[in-house]
């Protein structure tokens, strides 16, 4: 259906559950190695993560502290009392018949996170700790006569018991693009905290949106006979979408689901409350489980793990260990180094780049290289930061500018002159004709006495055209 019409008639209501696997050394409740990617199946197991009779869970302190740090980074309250609960359900990937999770006393709750293009921050309902399940590997056919030409499933317990943090938002999203941005933020934050690689393709970060459509009041499409709802009420159903295993498909899957539900609503029906799975091959969502089969998880406090009591001192200590978070760093870079928000955003995207940049600043002091130059060099030349030491980088910049020491004030004046003198070309450029840039650069070079790096001229023109 036409996106614009849809937007008028229906407003998507989207809440998210994001699972993040922590990269602790050991698993959540035993001392088996937590890193399982690419490991030979069932080589990292013990009685605890196999759920053998008599085995008991002993909580991983580091994982819990990291979970709390994620909560802190998402501006959550950290309750002084917390506990684990058992979530009882049957599935072949769950060897104990229950998952150790948190029900009514998560480690963190009531947080928020800001994303671009939104007035209101996204509210975080809770951040809790649980254990990952084993991994089911579905196969078909085998040499073995018993399963020849048959479907069968193998279970790899290497993943069983890996620490998993679940971040749940309020239903505050109304479009797929924001969801993607939120996910990128979460990924950035956990990477800053160095608690997870959060690689979606490797299953280290998983997204489960629940999506419904809210019928806006002033719909004029009377033929559909959809009863209007008041705007503060949530829709009477919601659809959970699982198996979105790649950043690439986040928007696609959500938009598919929005369109699917809109069509049902257009027919005057209400979508079924259910769990659907994203089918990557067909690029559609398919029904997995309906409401009638919904679980009653029979939560109760995990008797094998005593409840937790935090002291203010302990929480303060954890807070003190938090690194400067991306949003703060971005703000500071703009202020302290006089960078454009665009440059600062690129430099702070990954903490490694930001750290590198600041190291380079330290070594470039007294060497007449400005932060702006460093930023330009890193952003435009894209040097391999892992192979180039900051000192080297600074030397490279100095070497490059020896032939072209720029008097920045002079350069700025020349650029401004060229812009004034070439109004037609500037207009063309602003309309999107990027070829004109080369003409403008040529004009600047002609007026300059000394030789200046083309990139520096280019970025100076761009800066002045903003």
């Amino acid at each position, binding site marked *: 259906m036409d996106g614009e019409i849809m937007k008028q008639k229906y407003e998507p209501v989207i809440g998210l559950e994001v699972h993040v696997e922590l990269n602790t050394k050991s698993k959540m409740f035993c001392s088996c190695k937590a890193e399982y990617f690419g490991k030979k199946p069932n080589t990292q197991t013990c*009685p605890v993560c196999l*759920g*053998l*009779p*008599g*085995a*008991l*869970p*002993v*909580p991983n302190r580091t994982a819990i502290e990291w979970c709390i740090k994620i909560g802190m980074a998402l501006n959550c309250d950290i309750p002084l009392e917390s506990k684990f609960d*058992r979530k*009882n359900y*049957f599935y*072949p990937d769950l*060897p*104990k*018949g*229950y998952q150790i999770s948190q029900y009514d006393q998560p480690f963190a709750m009531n947080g928020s996170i800001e994303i671009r293009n939104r007035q209101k921050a996204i509210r975080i309902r809770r951040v809790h700790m649980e254990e990952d399940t084993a991994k089911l590997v579905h196969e078909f056919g085998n040499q073995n006569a018993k399963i020849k030409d048959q479907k069968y499933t193998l279970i790899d317990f290497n993943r069983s018991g890996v620490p998993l943090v679940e971040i749940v938002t309020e239903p505050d999203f109304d479009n797929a693009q924001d969801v993607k941005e939120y996910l990128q933020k979460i990924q950035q934050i956990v990477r800053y905290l160095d608690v997870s690689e959060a690689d979606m393709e490797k299953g280290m970060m998983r997204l489960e949106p629940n999506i419904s459509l809210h019928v806006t009041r002033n719909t004029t499409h009377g033929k559909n006979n959809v009863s209007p709802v008041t705007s503060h009420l949530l829709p009477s159903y919601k659809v959970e979408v699982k198996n979105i295993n790649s950043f690439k498909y986040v928007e696609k899957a959500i938009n598919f689901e929005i369109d699917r539900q809109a069509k049902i609503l257009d027919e005057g029906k209400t979508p079924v409350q259910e769990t659907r799975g994203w089918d990557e091959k067909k690029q559609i969502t398919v029904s997995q489980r309906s409401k009638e089969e919904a679980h*009653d998880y*029979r*939560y*109760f406090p995990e*008797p*094998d*793990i*005593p409840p937790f009591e935090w002291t203010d001192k302990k929480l303060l200590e954890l807070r003190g260990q938090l690194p400067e978070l991306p949003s703060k760093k971005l703000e500071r870079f703009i202020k302290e180094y006089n960078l454009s928000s665009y440059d600062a955003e690129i430099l702070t995207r990954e903490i490694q780049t930001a750290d590198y940049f600041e190291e380079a600043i330290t070594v470039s002091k007294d060497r007449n290289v400005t932060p702006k130059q460093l930023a330009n060099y890193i952003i435009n030349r894209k040097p391999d930061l892992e192979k180039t030491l900051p000192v080297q980088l600074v030397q490279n910049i100095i070497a490059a500018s020896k032939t072209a020491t720029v008097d920045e004030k002079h350069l700025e004046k020349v650029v401004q002159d060229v812009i004034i003198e070439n109004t037609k070309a500037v207009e063309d450029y602003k309309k999107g004709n990027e070829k004109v840039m080369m003409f403008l650069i040529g004009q600047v070079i002609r007026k300059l006495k000394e030789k200046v790096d083309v990139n520096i001229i280019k970025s100076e023109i761009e800066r002045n055209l903003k």
Partner: protein
Amino acid sequence: MKLNELTIAQALEGLKKKQFSSVELTKACIAQIKKHNREINAFITVCEEGALEQAKKTDNLASKGDAFRGKIPLLGIPIALKDLFSTKGIKTTAGSKVLENYMPPYDATVVEKLKAAGAVIIGKTNLDAWGHGSSGENSDFGPTKNPWNKAYVPGGSSSGSAAAVATDMCLGATGTDTGGSIRTPASFCNVVGLKPTYGRVSRYGIIAMASSLDSIGHLTKTVEDAALLLNVTAGNDSHDATTPIKEVTDYTKKIKDGIKGIKIGLPKEYNVKAKIDSSDIKIFQDLGAEIIDISLPHTEYAVACYYIIQPAEVSSNLARYDGIRYGSERQNFGEEAKRRIMLGTYTLSAGYYDAYYKKAMQVRTLIREDFIKAYKKVDVILAPVSPTAPWQLGTKADDPLKMYLSDIYTVTANLAGIPSLAVPCGFSKEGLPIGMQILGPQFSEETLFKIGYFYQETTGWHKQKPVMRVKKENG
């Protein structure tokens, strides 16, 4: 006296003096098992070969001199394990067909500790399947019989352990006590049973019944032996998050210090004066203890509370036996396990949780507080173990509620997480053993041993042994 009839303390002395070897001691136990197990059904698995091998090893170690003994405190002592304790390479059934062929790949912490202390694992004892029962009749491997009268129940769920100790098939045996499963069989078979403080002994590797109530203890011939075993099994375990880091004292050290000045409470709700002989109470007074009447007002709700919390945890703990991995379908669960799975699943379900489980947890807090208040006035509490003497096999088997009510005096200690020591205190008019329990505050085992020891030494009830006759196989 035959070697298998010795207490642990006596056997250690004899081994030390080289009066006999561990192999001889172990052989005597195995001979006794072979003679009587067919009738009593105390053992599910007998580890004859392994035990003799282990005994030989300990004899070799012992020959290296006495220096070893301090570090290896149970060197050469044959011990039986309730079949809930995971034993690497020895089948562990939980008394259920569901685990009929389950071979654990690891040892429970207690088993590791016992082995490290030089104990010889002689076999795995019978029990009510999964620990579900007060009589020993719920085993999928047939009921254990009371050695004092084979028409009677031995008490459960540690039925095989109690019967094995009572009949000298081993020198001591481990047990688990979730609502009386050590104390009831101990009192029905005239042996000593210790239910330690919750968390004092690691639960790791012991098949869970109800995780917040399970207490790991043992059954022995004397109170001193109970202290000797606790010396080995107690302590923090990095595999069990519910075991506090709390020093383990030598529990035998003060055992003979006397009970002068100790305050003993008699709770009116436990009907103590009707169940325990007034002469027994006088014994304590004669030894210098003070007797004080007390009240534990929430006792009447204990059984109801227990039979909500326990099945709830049972239903969750038994979920892993899902028919996929242990080679046995869920319909192989016995009636009692099915009953508890259904009860627990129901009380934890949405809409019922608040009315049942949550309420029961609140009552549990009140019961715990009853004891905390009482222990401000008294050092220990004296109570009967069972409201009745052992009953005839089959008489309560079809009435679960009647069976549950037999736990009335034992479940409170589990709900409160406190220790209790059951000691023999005489015989019914049918000639069947009766026991009483001494309950103390958390981690007061040392005091309990002191009191139990003096009572035992004064009365000598524990020295009475059932008369064992072997039926001739060919008439």
